[in-house]
Each structure stands twice: as C-alpha cells, then as structure tokens.
C-alpha cells in the first residue's frame, strides 16, 4: 500500500472516530487496563449513542411527536466462567474507569490477569451500515414524517365506512456503536433503521376486529420510495374488514399452509431460539447434542444472515464487534451449527458466529438471531393449496413464543382462512397455533418457490428486545394444533 492510500485511510478513520462518537484510543486503553487490573482475562467496552425520532397518529390526531438521545457505555470483565458488568451514562474518563473497577470486582486475587493489547485508532475502519444508507432520517423534516401518518390515516379511513379507528406510527433510529476489547479490537458501526406501522379497527354486527401492517428496513427515509403507504394502509383496513365476517377458528390438529414471507416466525420459534448456543449449553434446548443429525424435512435449509443489506436484523458488526455473517444452521434437513456469541464460542474453542447482540449499553450481550430464513423450495404455491383437502391457510402471522426446553411453541394467526377441497374458503377469527419444534420441522411436507422476506420483528429474550427479520416461501406443515373454539 502506498503512502497516499495510507494517509487516506488514516483520514477516514479520523472522520469515523469523530463522527462515530468514538472515545479516544488512549481513554479506551486506560479503561481496559483498569478493567483487567484485578486479574480478569478479557475486558470489553461497548459505547452506544442512539438518537430516535417517532411520531404517532391516533383517533385522527397527531398525538405524539417524540425525540430523544440515549447514550452510555457498558464495560464487562470476564474471568473463568464469571462475567462482571457495569454501565454508565457518563462517558467521562473517571466515570468509565469507575465502571471498569466495578465490573472488575468479580475477578479477585488472581495473578492470571491478561495484559490488554492496546487498541489503535488508526486501524482500517470496517464498512458500516451508514455507508449503505440513502437518506438520513435526521435530514428529513419532522413535518414530512408527520405527513406520512396523515397519508396512512386518510387511505385507511377511505377504504370502507366500517373502519372506525386508525392509528399510525413512524419511528427512526440512528444507533452508533463502538466496541473495543483487551484483544486489541476497536471497531464501530452506524446503524440506521426506519419503520412504519398502521393499525385499523373495523366495526360490524359481530363486534370489533383489527388489522395491522408494518414495514421496516435497516435503511433511511428511502424506504418510503420502496413501499406505497396508501396501499399498505388499505391492506391493514381490509384485514380488519375481512375478519368481521370471520367464523370462530376450529380446534384440533390439521394441515396448515403459511403464505410466503409469513412463516419466518414459525421457524424463529420452532427452532431458531433452540439453536442459540446459550440455551444449548445449559441443556435448555430440544436441539442440544443433535449436531450432524437430521432435524428437519430434507427440503429445509435454514440460514441466519446478518449481512442482508436493508433487512431489519442487519448490521455490519454485532454488539461484540464481530462482523455479521451468513450462517447455515440446517442444510437439507441436517443440523449443521448453532449460533454463537463471544463467551459461548470461547468456552467451545471456536469463533463467534457474529450473533452477540444486546438491546442497549445497559445489557450484557447474548446469542441472538439476525435475519433467519428458509431457502426457497420448488413447488408452485397454488399447487400446495390445491393439494390440501382440508386445513388452514395463514395469510399473516402474529408473534410467537417458545418453551426452548421442550420445544413447544405457539404463533398467532392474524389473518387466516379455512382450506376446503383445495380452495381457500371463509376467513376465521384469530388465535394461536401450537406445535412442537422438532416435530414440526420434520413434518414440513411442501416448500413453495415464492420466497419472500416477512415483516420486521422485535425479538424478546431475557427481557432484552432486538430487531430481527425473517423469511420463507409458502410452506405446509402436515399437522399443527389450532387454538380455536369450535370442533
């Protein structure tokens, strides 16, 4: 590399150090040294600066315009099996040192402490999410953001007279993070996410019904060039209206077809959480000890991929500084790997898979999913429905939840229909479906050729929420239990 290029890189990193809230490398080195002074083996500082802007319309009024700034640092010290953690909203050096000393209190009277590898501020910066962003939301006026809400409200209300209430929500966040550790790592990311949701209430003879649509991308305001908010809002309204004529859902077990893009929640719950190495290590997963075994139907290839630009679970580096990666978890039905964070990987003598995430600087990182999806199949989705005599067709899924220990999981259906004689028939009221993850994976008997990513999600684990994405083609599960009220 010639000098000119070096100089340019150096300049770039200086720009990123000033823009990306970075602390000076000498402060970081002092903090990490303080963190290891009592004998810790590994120390890390995670700095976060998060600005967000949101606006909410309800009942025809823009009720809430909200913005704010959250900022702070979390410092952890690892010795053996023990992690000490402290955080502070004060980024001054004395306060950071105090937090480091607090975190270091778990490591005591040991002479085995590591010597930190000094971090260098001139190391080549990695690409950040920021480099993929078109229009920074902070460059867009608040009145333009509020205008989106009105567009959604007008479109939803004009769909039909039965729509009696509409709420719409806009949110953008810019999350700048810096991760430095005692192994000399010193990296940062600049993550921008923009989302919009609209919820409608329809009123009819049978009571009230709701419909909801959400869009979101790890991108800037250009997301609204991709999506038409008026048609999104009409779709939410139509969901609510459709359900006014819905009959109670059946009970019992039957085949279930899930539309493209909707089935991600099913996999997220049926096996995603169970493939997180922390659950696996504590024998709290139904997939513990099953690497290399057949765990799903042959057609199923499941991938967790944090590198998918624009997707909701995308980032350049995870919250431990590891670059996002594409990790194949299930390949043609065979369990190939779990997902890993730094601590779990370290204990197993391997590398993290780039899945160490945290809600914010107040939290310890843990193993989390990013964008989890099932690779495309080969069957025409219409044929999957035509081939189903009797069952349920789910057009939109709600959230889900899993008991990782035994693999039982539920997910909600927020727009669903009966399938009768190979045709989609009348709508049914919403509710949950329940199944067992390992069993359901084996009983996926059709995968469509119409892969699509789903709606943005917020995944909760141990009290921490992180943005995640998912995707699937249309798929059929041979048997799931429907939580309805009729026989």
């Amino acid at each position, binding site marked *: 590399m010639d000098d000119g290029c070096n100089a340019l890189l150096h300049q770039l990193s200086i720009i990123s150090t000033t823009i990306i809230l970075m602390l000076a490398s000498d402060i970081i080195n002092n903090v990490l040294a303080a963190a290891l002074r009592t004998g810790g083996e590994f120390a890390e500082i995670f700095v976060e600066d998060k600005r967000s802007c949101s606006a909410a319309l309800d009942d025809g009024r823009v009720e809430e315009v909200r913005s704010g700034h959250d900022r702070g640092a979390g410092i952890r010290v690892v010795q053996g099996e023990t992690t000490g*953690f402290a955080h502070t909203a004060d980024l001054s050096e004395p306060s950071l040192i105090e937090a480091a000393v607090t975190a270091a209190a778990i490591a005591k009277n040991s002479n085995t402490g590591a010597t930190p590898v000094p971090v260098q501020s001139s190391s080549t910066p990695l690409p950040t999410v920021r480099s993929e962003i078109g229009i920074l939301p902070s460059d867009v006026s*608040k009145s333009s953001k509020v205008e989106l809400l009105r567009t959604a409200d007008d479109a939803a209300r004009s769909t039909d007279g039965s729509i009696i209430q509409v709420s719409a929500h806009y949110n953008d966040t810019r999350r700048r993070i810096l991760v430095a550790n005692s192994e000399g790592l010193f990296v940062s990311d600049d993550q921008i996410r923009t989302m919009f949701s609209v919820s409608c209430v329809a009123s009819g003879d049978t009571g009230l019904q709701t419909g909801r649509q959400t869009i979101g991308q790890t991108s800037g305001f250009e997301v609204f060039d991709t999506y038409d908010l008026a048609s999104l809002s009409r779709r939410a309204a139509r969901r609510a209206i459709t359900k006014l004529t819905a009959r109670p859902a059946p009970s019992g*077990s039957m085949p279930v077809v899930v539309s493209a893009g909707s089935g991600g929640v099913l996999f997220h719950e049926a096996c995603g959480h169970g493939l997180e190495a922390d659950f696996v290590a*504590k024998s709290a997963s139904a997939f513990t000890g099953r690497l290399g075994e057949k765990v799903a139907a042959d057609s199923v290839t499941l991938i967790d991929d944090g590198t998918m630009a624009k997707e909701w679970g995308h980032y350049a580096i995870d919250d431990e500084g590891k670059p996002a990666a594409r990790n194949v978890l299930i390949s043609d039905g065979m369990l190939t790997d779990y997902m890993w964070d730094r601590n779990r990987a370290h204990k197993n003598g391997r590398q993290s898979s780039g899945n160490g995430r945290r809600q914010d600087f107040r939290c310890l990182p843990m193993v989390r999913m990013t964008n989890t999806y099932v690779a495309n199949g080969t069957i025409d989705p219409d044929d999957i429905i035509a081939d189903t005599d009797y069952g349920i067709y789910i057009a939109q899924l709600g959230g889900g939840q899993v008991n990782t220990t035994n693999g039982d999981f539920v997910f909600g259906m927020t727009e669903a229909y009966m399938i009768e004689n190979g045709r989609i028939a009348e709508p049914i009221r919403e509710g949950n479906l*329940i199944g067992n993850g390992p069993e359901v994976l084996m009983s996926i008997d059709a995968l469509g050729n119409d892969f699509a990513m789903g709606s943005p999600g917020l995944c909760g684990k141990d009290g921490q929420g992180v943005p995640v994405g998912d995707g699937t083609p249309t798929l059929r599960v041979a048997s799931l*239990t*429907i939580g309805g009220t009729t026989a």
Partner: protein
Amino acid sequence: MTRNNSLLDTVVEIVDCAKPGESIEAYAVKERETEIRAYENEVESLTSATVQGIGIRVVNKGRQGFSYAVSLDDGTLQNTLQEARDNCRFASVDEFAGVATPDGVEPVSLDLYRADLQTYTTEKKVELALELEKAALSADPRIKNIETADYYDTICSNAVATSSGVAAESQETNCFLVVQSLAEDKNDTQSGLGYSVARHPDDLSVLEAASDAAERATRLLGAKQLPSGRVSIVLDPHVAARFVGIIGATLNGESVLKGRSLFTDKLNTLIAAPLITLTDDATNPLAYSASPIDAEGLATRRIPLIVDGVLCSFLYDSYTARRAGMDGTGSAVRAGFMGMPSVGAHALQLLPGKRSQAEMIADITDGLLVQNVVGLHSGINLVSGDFSIGAQGIRIRNGALAEPVREVTIASTLQRLLLNVIEVGSDLKWLPMNAAGMSLAIDDVVMSGT
C-alpha cells in the same frame, strides 16, 4: 456541570422555565440496580449500575411534544426542553391535551423503601444467588440443571413536576429471586419457574422460590397432548396474575374514548361473574408495583373496577379523564423516562375467595390446571376479545390431579371467560408484575389438542 440537586429540584427547575401559554411536565428517574446470575456454583454474571434519565413534555396551545435524555446536566436539560418545544409544532391541536393539575388527593405515605439496601454488601447478594441455585438443584432428585438462578434488586427514585403545580417524588426498593429449574426423566425435560419477592433481601425466601420451581418442573414430566374438548380450567396463581393484568388492560379509559374497547357502553352492567371484585390499588404496600404517585405525579388511589361482577369504572390518566368528563383515577403509567405517560393499571387484585387450590380442584370432574401459558401477546386481542393461548398443565379428573399435559391451547373470548369464572382462590401471592396471583377456576373453555 453535574449538580447535586435532588431529582425533585431538577424537575421543578425545568417546569419553572414555562413561558406564558405553555405547560411543561418533567419526569426524572434514578435507579441503582444489581443483578446476579449463578451457574454451576459460580457467579455467571454480576451487573451493577446506575440508570438515570429525564423525559420532558411540553403542551402549547393544545399541541404536545416530548423529548428525553440520559444526562441531567444543565446544557442537556435545556436542549431537551427545546427539542420537546420543537416537537409541539408538528402535533395536532387537541383541546384536551395538557399536563396533570393537582386534584386535591394527597399521596398516602407508603413504607416502600429500605434504606439499608444501600449498604447491603454485594458478597451477601452473591451468596443469595448461589444459595438459590443450590437449593433449586437439591429440591428434587429429578432436577438436573438450573437454567437461570437470579438475584435482582433496585433502589429507585423518581420525581414528577408540572408547571401547573404538581411536584411529587417517590422512592422504592425492590428485590426478587427468580429461578428456572430443569427436570429430567427418561427422554423428557421440563422447566419450572419460582419466585420470591420482597422490599429487602433479608425478607426473600430461597426455599420458596426453589421448591416452587422444582414442583412446577417435575410435575410436568411425561406430559402429553390430549384430545380436544370443553373443560373447566384452574389458572394457577402465576398464570392468573397475567390474566388479571390483561383484564386490567381492557379497562383502559383511552380505549373506550377511541372506540376500541370490548366494554364500551358496559359501565354499570354485569360483565363478570358476581363473585368477581377487581380493584387497582397502588397504595397497597404489599404489591410489588406499589407507589404513592402515578407517572404524572398525581396520588394513586384505590379504584374499584369491577364490584360483584358489575363494571364500575375505567382507568384514566389526566388527559383521558378530561376528555371523558370523568374524575381522574391516578392511572398514568410510563415505560421508563423515554416514554410519554399513558393509561394503565398499577396493582390489580381480585377479592380472594375462601378456599385453597386443592379444595377448588376437588369440585372439578373434568378439567385442566393451567400452569404455564405462552403466546399471550399473539393470541389475545384486546379489541375483539378473542382469546387463544398455548398451555401446559395437569389434567384434573374427578376432583384430583391426574396426568401432565402439554402442547394444547385453551380458547374462549375475554368476555366469556370473565362471566364463566366459578371460583377465586384464597392463595393470594404478589409477583414481580402489576397484578396479584391467586388460583382462578373458569368453566367451559375449549381445550384444543390432537
């Protein structure tokens, strides 16, 4: 510059900046927390930190704006106030928008703070977490692993002031133990959760949490799916507390005003079985979520919501009370300093019945004791009332507990569930949530299985 002012001084100084025609509300919180997780007789993680932040709401000519920050220095506070003022410009005019005004109700004095938690050593807290794991493991030979064994405490102060004269603060200490035990038997693994909740670590019971978790995990071993059918259910206290929390959420005065309540036009009518009396009372010091003030700084009070099955009141914050033309109920809540106040229940409690869970079960010929539920967020619609959740529990046959059950759903509507309650248990227990638990028997619910 960092100041040593009290939180109340800080929020009062901000609201004193109000210009003519402008109302300001400031909410500040400062919290010291410790969280310790034990695993395999060592500390897996120890978190210790101070959390602070401020949220400022400005209302100007019926337009409302909000902003928040984590720093309480003068410069940040002024910037945050400016940002909230700026945000007002983009909101719609709402004649009822505004901050709370003093309503003459004095906050009751509650004993929620144990000063010596400040000096309680980390070593003793670590000891509790390690003891918890040990006790959980030895509670039953079938308990083979402990997924998590946590000690948690918080010393929390918050203050609210408004330019209309509200100035209130409260201080609480809370701590709890929570353990998730894993029972193993042949090819089956089941988990069970146990809690102990107190204001001070010395009042926590390691044994209570450990034995609860062991019982709940082991009694599910060998659980199987059942055929579908109509049954009576008994919600155990952990599940009933969450169910009561959901009922509280349906009694939100804002939903009524905005046409998304199940119970619009139902005031003073029978909406539940006559044996149901439900109150929201944050002034009950036994409640985990007790507090003398609400999130707008008004005094909390005892609110009878359902009395003998009759709907008596909805919950209101100052905005919804003004708009509905009702008296406020001191029911403002917020999700931390980053959120605006909204309407919610603080500490819900059903009037307990006279009999134990075992006595209640003895009267049921065909039923399910529901011990765990999943999918409350995806299977319950607070607008339509549709109710369908995943459940695990124990079959009830001829008045006695029989085989364990998993992978079933229970479904009904919220409206029907309330009317079909046949008994409330005497086994009241406060959990770390906004409602008390106690056993609850409900008739005619559809269980869906094979």
